[in-house]
């Protein structure tokens, strides 16, 4: 409940952190939570105006606060309330509490918060504090035939948290945030048993007190929860060292309408038929509530080092990443941004402190563009993060830079690398600024075999540009991508897409049509429906195509057995 007070009700992240234009008309990032906090970004305004054709004079503003009168009244049956009170589990029917848990962070959801109201929101929010509480709530829900929608960090970008409009039963939002304890740490086996409601950054902070970490760092880790990671098959930035969620999880306890599902041991691997964890991971809240997870932990790394490499063009950059993956020497993280994103990152450079740094920057720029002949409108940048023993890191670093050199790459410094990763967290705040100036945007992702990475990136970006033109978008859109993960057999590609919607009467609809076209394009290029965002309700229409009729039937039959009355009725996935 505390969290809700420090977070924005109608946008991303902390209340005190946001992009603004100061009195001088310069962009600035507020707050002290991020490295960028309090800094002035002198070239950012120009970039926005140039990229989006946006102007600071044309502003739209969100409602200042939630209008409680707009909120649909709760449908709660009195008998259930009596039973609930008897359990002593805290709950609320307050409008703000309910609206806060009625959405994730899709563009259309934020848009509704700023200018409209959801048709259907949870009727009641409950805060279990333990596995036993969850068992009680699920029992009550079965008894009274209610609908439960589990809520973790609320960072979904797949419409997974939206309440089905046609749901007539009472919708219970089961907020796991009070189940946030580390139950035990097993240093011999390097595992920790953690309640599923814990938020990513809290988990890492608490583990670090004992000298450990999980190393799982999705971009949303400041706000997303362990249970949410399990339910969506999350992926972390440093998966090259630590693995994705499916590699990290040792044991899961989940409460379903049928009862509790878990394994009888905590072992690294077992051959007992299809792994039941894989029914749970990615189930997106359709089967039950994950309450406790045993997760692998590692000693905190001795040394961390950032890095960056400039490539003459995107093709060479991708070829380099492919080679790194082939040699299986990827650092904890390696990401390649295209030219548009490089320029965007450039625009977010804060004012330099001294003439000396500015002189150095100029010198670097001269070296790369004039001396080495890189075209600033074509070049692209890879950012790197190394972790481990100091000596091994340095060795590793040399190996990677040697490969990069073979592909025409030039080392571009630690600072650029670190800034790149910092921007990952800050970039999410930008959408709220854009929304104030008629710019809407979103990100989406996919995974794709290596040989199709370039074609997919080019075609999807081109498709977005064409669809915008066809749909009457007046200014060319910002359509950019980065390769964020490398695997043996392919890569994860992340797209950002935003446009200025002035002159369009129904921007959200237009936006969704374009995103849909982009997804069609991804699938036609041999990309997946999702690498880590999940399906939710946003991408359901492609499930059959993605996993075949029979595959869908397999998932359905699990759902039918585990939850025959559709208590977990968020309608995701299937």
């Amino acid at each position: 409940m505390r969290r809700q007070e420090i977070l924005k009700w109608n946008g991303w992240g902390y209340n005190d952190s946001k992009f603004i234009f100061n009195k001088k008309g310069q962009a600035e990032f507020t707050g002290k939570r991020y490295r960028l906090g309090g800094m002035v970004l002198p070239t950012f305004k120009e970039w926005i105006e140039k990229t989006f054709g946006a102007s600071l004079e044309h502003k739209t503003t969100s409602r200042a606060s939630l209008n409680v009168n707009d909120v649909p009244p709760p449908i709660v049956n009195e008998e259930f309330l009596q039973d609930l009170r008897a359990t002593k589990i805290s709950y609320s029917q307050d409008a703000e509490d309910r609206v806060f848990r009625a959405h994730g962070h899709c563009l259309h959801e934020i848009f509704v918060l700023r200018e409209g109201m959801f048709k259907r929101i949870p009727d009641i929010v409950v805060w279990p504090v333990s596995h036993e509480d969850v068992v009680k709530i699920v029992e009550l829900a079965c008894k009274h035939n209610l609908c439960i929608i589990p809520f973790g960090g609320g960072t979904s970008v797949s419409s997974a948290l939206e309440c089905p409009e046609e749901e007539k039963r009472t919708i219970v939002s089961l907020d796991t945030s009070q189940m946030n304890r580390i139950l035990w740490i097993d240093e011999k086996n390097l595992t920790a048993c953690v309640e599923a409601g814990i938020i990513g950054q809290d988990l890492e902070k608490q583990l670090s007190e004992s000298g450990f970490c999980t190393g799982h760092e999705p971009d949303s880790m400041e706000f997303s929860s362990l249970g949410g990671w399990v339910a969506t098959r999350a992926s972390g930035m440093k998966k090259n060292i630590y693995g994705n969620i499916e590699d990290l999880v040792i044991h899961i306890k989940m409460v379903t309408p049928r009862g509790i599902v878990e394994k009888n041991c905590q072992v690294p691997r077992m051959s007992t038929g299809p792994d039941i964890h894989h029914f749970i991971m990615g189930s997106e809240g359709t089967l039950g509530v994950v309450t406790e997870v045993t997760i692998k932990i590692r000693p905190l790394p001795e040394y961390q080092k950032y890095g960056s490499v400039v490539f003459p063009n995107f093709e060479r950059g991708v070829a380099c990443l492919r080679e790194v993956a082939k040699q299986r020497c990827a650092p904890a993280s390696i990401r390649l941004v295209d030219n548009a994103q490089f320029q965007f990152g450039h625009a977010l450079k804060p004012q330099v402190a001294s003439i000396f740094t500015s002189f150095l920057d100029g010198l670097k720029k001269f070296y790369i563009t004039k001396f080495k002949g890189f075209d600033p409108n074509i070049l692209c940048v890879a950012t790197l993060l190394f972790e481990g023993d100091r000596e091994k890191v340095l060795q590793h670093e040399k190996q990677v830079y040697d490969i990069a050199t073979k592909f025409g790459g030039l080392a571009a410094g630690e600072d650029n690398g670190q800034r790149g990763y910092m921007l990952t967290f800050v970039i999410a705040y930008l959408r709220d600024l854009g929304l104030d100036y008629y710019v809407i945007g979103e990100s989406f992702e996919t995974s794709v075999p290596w040989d199709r990475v370039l074609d997919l990136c080019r075609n999807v970006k081109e498709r977005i540009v064409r669809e915008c033109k066809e749909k009457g978008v007046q200014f060319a859109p910002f359509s950019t991508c980065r390769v964020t993960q490398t695997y043996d057999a392919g890569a994860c590609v992340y797209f950002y897409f935003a446009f200025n919607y002035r002159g369009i009467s129904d921007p959200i609809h237009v936006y969704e049509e374009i995103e849909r076209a982009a997804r069609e394009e991804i699938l036609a290029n041999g990309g997946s429906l999702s690498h880590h965002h999940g399906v939710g309700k946003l991408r359901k229409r492609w499930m059959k195509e993605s996993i075949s009729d029979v595959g869908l039937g397999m998932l359905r039959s699990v759902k039918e057995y585990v939850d025959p009355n559709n208590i977990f009725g968020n309608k995701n996935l299937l």
Partner: protein
Amino acid sequence: MVRSSISGSGTALLYFPGAVPLSQVHPSALLLCSEDRGELRHPRSALQPCKPRTTTAVTTYRSELSGSRVLSCISSKCVSASLQKELTSKKRDEFEDILEERRLSSDLRYAMKCYTPVIYKGLSPCKPNAIKSVVLQSEQVQYVIKQLAKEMGESPDIIQEEATEILDEMGHSMQLGTVRFFAFTLSKIFKQLFQRVCVNEEGMQRLQRAIQEHPVVLLPSHRSYVDFLMLSYLLYTYDLALPVIAAGIDFLGMKIVGELLRRAGAFFMRRSFGGNRLYWAVFAEYVKTMLRNGYAPIEFFLEGTRSRTAKTLTPKFGLLSIVMEPFFKREVFDTYLVPISISYERILEESLYAYELLGVPKPKESTSGLLKARRILSDNFGTIHIYVGQPVSLRTLASGRINLCPYNLVPRHLPQKPTEDIQEFVSDVAYKMELLQIENMVLSPWVLVAAVLLQNLPAMDFELLIEKTVWLKGLTQTFGGFIEWPDNLCAKKAVTSGLSLHSNIARLVDGHVVLNDKGVEDGAVGEIVFKRALVILMCSTYRNQLLNVFVRPSLVALALQMTRSFRKEEVYSSFSFLRDIFSDEFIFFPGISLKDFEEGCFLLTKCDAIQATQQEIYPTDKGSVVVSFLSAMFRPFVEGYQLIFRYLSKETKEAFTEKQFIPGVRNFVFQLLEKGTTQCYEALSSDMQKNALAALVQLGAVKKKKMANGFSYSVNQEAIHKILDVFDARTPIQKPMAARL
């Protein structure tokens, strides 16, 4: 045979939106739905006869518009008829004579001009030889080399060597110097041969934009060797990237000329290489590499060879499916297909073609032959019209139609047999592009004269000819034909100038126009027949240019005559029968028999030739002129096919080859002509004979078997007799299909 056409019409009905029985729908109602605007339009306004020579503003969005229109046709098949209607309503571009400037300024300076063509935005610049090595090193070719090496137990190096040889034989080596040489000599030659070379400039502008945007495939019609020379010449003139052209390997037999063509951008393909996997792999990869890199526009002829009859040949699919593959595999974002219609007032090879059709073999391409042919330089071949059509986006055509999943599950460099879906799509696109070629083909007044003349042999009153020609001009325009007849040109002048240009075919004698078959009077009967056949075939070459514009209403007219009933369903049965029989003779979009019928009926209604009620179709009093003219226009085909079928019905041999069939049927027809029992000279045409045989194979009346060297055929006598009976109206076509109407 009838059954197969039934199932054909069945499919057409399946595609029909809402499946409203035809009898309840006025044909024109189907045209009401304007696909790309989503609003209703009055059919009249959609069908205003086109005005040639009107300038239109071209916007970038036009290509997309037309693309979506074509798409709707291909993706749902059912709207193709309305599509064609709509396109006839479009204003056509204005023509520019490119020779005009050539006659005013120096050819040498023109050949040496600064040539900096616009190029594809994604072009990775590359020399012709570099392309070859890219192809040789490509995963695609290397894969096949390794496979073959394993299978044959040979070293891959030997096979690689073979691949290099293939590439050297195939590859072009475009050089600016040679291009300039051609620019100079062709200027001289074209000015000698032709009065004017007219091109729609807006088409060139559209092409220019298309070339920058996506890889471009040029799909010209093929009537003459002049086609590709002229097209390259044109692109050079307009400062556009010169195309690489798929040419037959026969040209390499010509000393010097073959190499010259190679340096001007021709690449050479063997006539048949279906069985040779290495050749296929190298060739396909060569073409695709040039396409993917955006190296140059790729040009080839859908028809596969020069049409000897000036009638569009049914398309070949091999090269088309190769150039479409990079898009299917998403190696390129899109590919533009550009239909180009080139029409000749007088075809350079007209008499060669006629000889060839009559069985006098085509002279082998040779340099000395070419030099001998130089005497034609003193002759006049009139005007050429080149209409560069709207670039059609392959992406738009494929949208919603192609399931790409199979391409996602196999590495892209492995040779993969296209799925049935894809094959059907390729075929639909091929027909679509040919229909677009036909639609934009400029028709000269002489074409009308030839059509009238052929119905009035051996002689016709000059004044009557003029009168009928003018009448036919109106009819052609009603049917959407694109006639180049300037407003200020009086009919008499038009006919006279046609006659003077084609004095080898017809001439004016004492106020009558007669065929120019000099020497016919004195000679053996056989010689007379041969000479007459030559002239008639030459003349029909010009009439043929009208046929694809007229074919739908004419088959309705023929069906009306065959049926001897006015019941719509029976007329449709006959129509369908004829459409199946002539499926290789004329160009029909696959599987939309009902739409074609409706279009035919609609056009006949439009010129008041027939009246249609819900159940019946009958000619109006006024309309009998039109109906009988139309059926007479196609009479040679009906009679010719009957003769050919009759010949086959007497065929006793168990199996025969095409080489046996053609002379056999030719002799058979020849004898009948000598005896005077038939006047159908066109049945001597080997083109018609082959088409008829192909149609029978499709209808299952002839079995085609692959043999070691070519194909062998065997006749199903019962089926042939059944078809002949339908022609003679002895047996009605079976009903079931009609019940579906």
